[in-house]
Each structure stands twice: as structure tokens, then as C-alpha cells.
């Protein structure tokens, strides 16, 4: 009973950390974007203000039960991802669910939220939402392929499908996987562009074309939950990448440095690129990223 309580406590702490970090990263993204565009930009805590404002806004209407459940679905997948991914390597403060699921489970639980959200967006009856959802799902099919190829390469090279196993492998060899199996890293990072949905892959919620797509009917509290789940999800995914490719992080500072460095890749790439159409995006993901994924698998088969 007690360790259950401790686990819940640890989960809450993890969640708060993820929330804060994710929100801050979002604000920093806006700041950096502004600086790149030669603007002053909002303060880095702007996202917190927005979030609080959204939370304090009244929500007078809903479109039905699935519409109400949508944000909760979204939150489930981000928080579950967060709990399964080991935040800090080799500490037992919050071993949330690290040893209860492995990478395949992670892949599937990561798709849980978007689909539930899609159901919510579908029930609002707004055509823009449905269009955005179809685009998002198509894009997901696109980037999952190189992503899975990279993961499979790692799995077969180190004969384990669990994240902790891969982290242990790095700990033993002492070299990060991004160096020992570079192709997998390249493929995974390319897939990450699609995962974060920054430009050029932001046609899903194109603000002016689709009226922000799936979320177009959600304001106030709905939008707050989605926003926070997005930031938690960002943190969780970054941590996952760190664990897989950069040997994890032993304390929070290193974690923040690594994650932020990794996070800048899609952000900066996004600021400086125009937008792809959906089929262009899908074809892009099935082009070079998949090629690198194949290289990764070949390398793994040779080295295993």
C-alpha cells in the first residue's frame, strides 16, 4: 500500500516537473522564434500566463460526451508516456512505470491520445477538425516508419526491447547510441520533426487554413488541458530520445541541457522552412529517413 502511495507521489512530482519544463520550453520556443524574426517576443513565461488564462476562462458549451473525453484521452497518452520513460537514469525517486512496459508498448500508448483526441474533434462536427485529423493520421503513418526502423535497429543490435535495457547497454559501453549507431539516430531525429508537428509538418493544425484543425472547437479549459498535455508530451518524448540515444541523464541539469539541445533541432528547422502538403510530407518521411532507417537496420544486423 505504502509504495503505491509513494509511486503516486512520484508520478505527481514527475508530472509537475514535466509540465513546468514543457511550458518553459514552449515559451522559449516563442522567444527564440521572435528573436530569429528580429522581434522582441513575449517573455519566456508567456505560456504559463496563457495557460492560466485559459484555465480561468468559462466553458459554457460542449458538443457531447466524446468531446468532453477528448482532452482526457490526450492527457492519458502523454502522462502514460511520461511514466513509462525513465526520467533520471539510475535513481529510485520516481521509478514510475519504467519496468512495466517496453518500447512497443510505448509506441502504441503514444498513439492512444491522438486517436482519442481525434474522436473528440470528430464529435464537434466541425469539418475543419475532421480534415485536420485525417492529415494528422496520414502524417503519423508517414513518420512512424523511420521511427520504428530506428527502434528496431536498436532492439536487434542490443537484444532488448526495453528502454532501461538500452540505457544499461549505453552505461556499460560508455558510448552514446547516437555515436555507436548513428543512422538510427538520424532516422529517429528526422521522424521527430513529424512528431513535434513544427513547420514544415504543421499542416495538421494550419491556423489560417483549417482554423487550427482538430482543436478548432475547443476553448477555455479544453484548450488548457490540451496545451499542458502537449507540453508534458514534449518533455516525455525528449526524455525518451535522451534515454535512447544520449545515455540518459543522471541529474536534472544534464537532462535539461540535453533535452533543450535536442529540442532546438526541430524548432530551428521549423522556423526556417515553409510548409509541406500532406502527401509531400508523407513521401518525405518515406524518402531519406526511411533510407537511413534501412541503413541502421543493416548496420545492426552486421554488428549484432
Amino acid at each position, binding site marked *: 500500500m505504502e509504495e503505491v502511495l509513494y509511486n503516486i507521489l512520484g508520478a505527481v512530482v514527475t508530472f509537475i516537473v514535466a509540465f513546468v519544463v514543457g511550458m518553459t520550453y514552449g515559451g522559449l520556443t516563442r522567444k527564440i522564434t521572435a528573436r530569429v524574426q528580429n522581434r522582441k517576443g513575449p517573455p519566456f513565461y508567456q505560456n504559463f500566463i496563457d495557460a492560466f488564462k485559459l484555465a480561468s476562462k468559462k466553458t459554457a458549451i460542449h458538443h457531447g460526451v466524446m468531446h468532453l473525453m477528448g482532452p482526457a484521452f490526450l492527457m492519458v497518452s502523454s502522462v502514460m508516456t511520461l511514466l513509462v520513460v525513465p526520467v533520471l537514469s539510475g535513481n529510485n525517486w520516481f521509478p514510475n512505470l519504467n519496468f512495466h512496459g*517496453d518500447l512497443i508498448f510505448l509506441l*502504441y500508448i503514444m498513439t492512444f491520445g491522438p*486517436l482519442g483526441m481525434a474522436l473528440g474533434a470528430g464529435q464537434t462536427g466541425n469539418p475543419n477538425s475532421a480534415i485536420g485529423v485525417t492529415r494528422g493520421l496520414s502524417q503519423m503513418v508517414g513518420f*512512424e516508419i523511420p521511427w520504428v526502423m530506428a527502434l528496431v535497429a536498436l532492439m536487434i543490435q542490443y537484444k532488448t526491447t526495453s528502454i532501461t535495457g538500452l540505457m544499461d547497454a549505453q552505461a556499460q559501453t560508455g558510448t552514446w547510441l547516437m555515436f555507436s549507431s548513428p543512422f538510427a539516430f538520424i532516422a529517429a531525429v528526422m521522424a521527430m520533426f513529424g512528431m513535434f508537428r513544427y513547420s514544415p509538418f504543421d499542416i495538421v493544425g494550419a491556423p489560417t487554413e483549417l482554423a487550427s484543425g482538430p482543436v478548432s472547437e475547443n476553448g477555455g479549459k479544453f484548450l488548457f488541458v490540451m496545451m499542458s498535455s502537449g507540453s508534458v508530451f514534449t518533455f516525455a518524448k525528449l526524455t525518451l530520445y535522451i534515454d535512447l540515444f544520449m545515455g540518459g541523464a543522471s541529474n536534472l541539469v544534464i537532462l535539461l541541457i540535453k533535452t533543450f539541445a535536442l529540442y532546438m533541432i526541430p524548432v530551428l528547422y521549423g522556423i526556417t522552412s515553409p510548409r509541406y502538403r500532406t502527401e509531400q510530407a508523407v513521401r518525405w518521411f518515406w524518402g531519406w529517413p526511411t533510407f537511413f532507417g534501412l541503413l541502421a537496420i543493416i548496420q545492426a544486423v552486421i554488428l549484432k
Partner: protein
Amino acid sequence: METFSIIFAIFLGGAVLTYFAGKLSSVVQDILFLATVLVPTYLFFSGVSIGSSMPFSLEGISLLWGVNHFGWLFSLIVLGLGSLAAVYSVGYMKGKERRGYFYLNFVLSVMSMLGIVISQDLISFFIFWEIMTWSSYLMVIYSGNDVQRIGIKYFVFSAIGAYAMLMAIVIVHSVTHTFFIEDMIQAYGQMSLQLQIWIPILFLLAFAVKAAMMPLHVWAPGAYSNAPMAYTSLFSGALSKMGVYGMVIILVTMVNRLPQGILFREVLAWLGGITAAMGTLWAIKQDDAKKLLAYSSVAQLGYIIVGVSIGTELAMMAGLFLAVMHALFKGTLFMVVGAIEKQTGTTNFTEVTGLIRKMPWTFFAALMGIIALAGIPPLGGFIGKWMLYESLITSDHYLLVILIFFSSTAAFLYCYKFLFGFFLGQEEKEWAHVKEAPATMVVPMVLMGIFMVVLGTFPGIVLNPINNGLMDLGYVDSYKHLWETSIIFNSWGDHVILQPILYSIMGIFIFFLIFVLWKGYKGTRYVTTKDISSSGEVPKEDENLTFSVGFMQPFMRAVAPVMRRQMDKYYTGFANGLEGLFDFVRRIYTGNAQTYAVYVVVFIVIVLLFKDVLF
């Protein structure tokens, strides 16, 4: 074993009685029908103990019926889904024509499937196989539109498969001089290599046709979508599993012992993978729910084929578990389509939208089925998918796992299309009158949905029979190291512990649901789907803003190159060529007496010329 004869007597007699009871009254007919399906089910699971058998002899051929663990597993699928579908079809067939015909064929199908799984000799196996084929054929042509093409395509493919099996059976008989499956398996080792290669090929041809494997799948979409939905749930759920059943037996007992067996496995596995991928892509393209589900059945059977043909312990369990799950969720989904067809009269996504508030229970069942189909935790589909991936990775099928993963990710697209097309989107005035389906139809669906949830957390319920069945097939060691009641392992020792995952998912979900609804649910009011932010415009009652035509267009554009050709075309061309040949042959008979006389003379001359060769 008297129970066998009683069961089959009830099936046969009940079928005929049900057929003629339609003359009296429909209620009597329904009751008789239910009794005919449910009573033998009860008798089977209560009266028949595993390992019991019943030898008898017919036309000088000694036959044997019996139940082993493996057959029992599939009889679970057949009878379980069969009785649920029976309850469902009572509601579904209310007020439809030719109910006697439907019930008769339904009962015959269930009987023949049960017979297949309990027959321990090839002759009764083949007889039941053929009864299954033609009863399902009569179901396929029940609804009557485009019968000639769809029905005959289905039957011809089945017949080609069945005759291949018959050929294998008689070849085996000519070697062993018995028809017992045991003896066949015993004698297989001593056969000549040529036979050792040909017999599995012939058998697998038959089973691959039923399991709708590329390139023998072309009958499936038409047949699945043309049969009445109440039967299609059984057709796709249980009847296609008979192909898997036979396939597993042949693979395990024959191909494993063959040195060249690995080749068989690889070819089969790749065919299964291609089946999964192409089936998924075609399913995404469909606008008719029946067709969509039909193609998705083809794809799902592709996964199962991959699992059983890879044939490592984990893969075999994955395949069989997926078979059970597929029976569950595809049965549910076809039932859902049937309910919607009955309530609205159409199954086209572009016509019917926004039923979620009209048919909530149906939506629940559909949601469960779709989540299980997509393989998303915490429902049962995930277990099978997980095992499949792990087995593929641990058995060095790296590209195949990518293919499978691609198809199961693309499956999300049609999953969402199914749910959105029917239940979500704008609520139309046209469908304002729609009511929830009657209880006899809703209850089976919801039951299966709940069962899927349970299986997602406690897969041991099904993994245990699978384990015993595989041990029956000759796997000496148990599979206990691969699963516990709610934990699944792969062969590298990595595992997923399901119970805490389920609890945390529920906890998070409920917490944030409450958070969203905080400060009183009554504070928020429901607004119709017309009240949307469409540039300040007010949609009129009769204008439909739902986005349902060309739903997955961008993705389709992305994958257009692979979908340019359809296997069907080639078969049609081949058939047309044959028809031309037949027509040419027909012209031999000119209808002219002189010609016939000339034929006679020519015959004599030829025979005389070649008499030294002939005699």
C-alpha cells in the same frame, strides 16, 4: 461418445425443423433456431470432455471424431461467436424475407465448423469443409445483388482449394491406406521428398483460400460484404479461422519436420505481410462500411498468417491469440454495421453521420471493437500485436516487422474513418428518427466489447487454452514462461505488466475528466453540431457540413503508385480467356451430320494409324 451424435442430430433436425417452422409462426421459428444453436453449445461444453473420441465407419472407410485441446480452442471460437451471432440474428432477421433459408444455412455453417474441429480423419474433415463452403456460399448469395459474379467467384476459389485438399487426401490415402490424420502425420516422415513437398502445398492452398491470403483473397471483399451482416460476423470471425486451424496443423505437424520447411514459412509469412499491407490500404479507400470491414478482415488474417507461419513459440501464440481477438472484434464490428444497416437502411459513410447520440450502445461496442482492432492498450488487440512484433523481432524478421507495423499504423486511418463516418460528425435531420437497435442485437455486441476489455488486462484467460492446444500439437514444453495471467514476456525476458498500466490509465483518465467537468457539469450545456465556428455563418438545418467524401484523400495520393493495379483484374482476364477457349471447343459440335460422319472416319483412321502405339 453419445454426445457427438446427439449434438449433430440436434443440429441437423433443428435446421430442417427451423426451416419449415416458418410456415407456422416466426416466433416459433426464432425459438427453434435459438434452441438449435444454443442447446448443442451447452451440450458440447458441458458433456464433451477433452480427449474423448468416437470411432465409426462409413462406406468401408473407418472414421474418427474426437476433441483435443487444439480443436477445443477453435470450437470455443465457433460456438461462442456462433451463439452470440445467433442471438443477434434473431433481432437482425426480424421482418426480413427468407428467414428459414437464413436460419438453415446459419445452423449448417455452425455445425460444419464444429465438425471440422472435431473430425480426426480426413474424409469427415473434407465433408464438413465442403458443407461449410456451400452453406456459406448460399449465404453469400442470400441478398441477391450481383450474385453471379460474387457468388461464383467465391465458390470457384473455394472449390479450387477444396479439390487441392481432396487431391492431397487421396494421395495420402494411396500411401497410407487409412484416412486418419494421426496416421498421415505418422507416415509423413517416410514419404518420398516429392510427396513431402507437394502434400503441404496442396493442403495449404485449400486453407489459404479460406483464410483469404494474397493472392487468393479476391473473393473475400465481395463475399463478406454481400452476405447478411448477422452471418458475416460469423463468416469473417469464425469461418475464416478454419483456414487458420488447418494451416496451423499442417505447418506444425508437417512443415516443421521438413528440412525445406523454413522456405515454406518465409514465403507464407511474406505473403501474409503483403496481404496485411494491401488489405489495409484498400480498406482505407472504401466508402462502404461492409467493404471496409471486409478488406480489414483480409488484412487482419494477414497478421494471423504471419504469426502462425513464423512458428516460433511466441509467434504461434500471437497468431492464435490474434485469431481469437479477431473473432471477437470483427464479429462485433460486423454486428455494428448490421445494426446501423437495420436502423438506417444504408451502410455508406457518405450518407449516414452523427449517430452517436442516437445509438450510444452501438457506439460503445464499435469503439471497443475499433480500439481492439487498432491494437491500442488497454484492450486485447494490443496483446496479440505486441506478441507478434516481439516474435518477429526476436526471430530476425526485421523488414517483415516494418511491413506489419506500417499496415497496423495505417489501420488507424480506417479505424477512425469507421467511427467518424457513422457516429461522429454533423447530426443530420435525415437521421433524427433513428433509434437504438433492439436489445437482442445490442446485448451480444456489448458483451463482446466487455470481454475484449477483460482480455486486454487478463490475457491468461485465453492464453491458457492456446497453451494446452499447442502442447497437444506436439510442442513438448509448455509456454508458461511467455505469459502469466496479466503479464506477457518475450523470449528476451522483456515484459509488459498489464494490471498497473490499466489502473493508472483509468486513474489519469478519470482525474482529467473530472478536471474538465469541474465547477459543475450543469455549467456547460450541450450545443448541437450546427453551432460551430464556421466563419460566423449559421449552417442551415438541411446543409451537411460533414467531411466524408474523399476522406483519406491525401494519404491515398501518397500511396497511389502501389494501388494502381488490382489482383481482381488478372483473374478476370484469365477467366475471359478460358471462356474464349470453351467457346472454341463448343464449335467442334457443328450440328451438321456430315461433319459428325467425318469425325467418325477420322477417329477410326487415327486409331488405326496409332494402333501400334496404343495397343
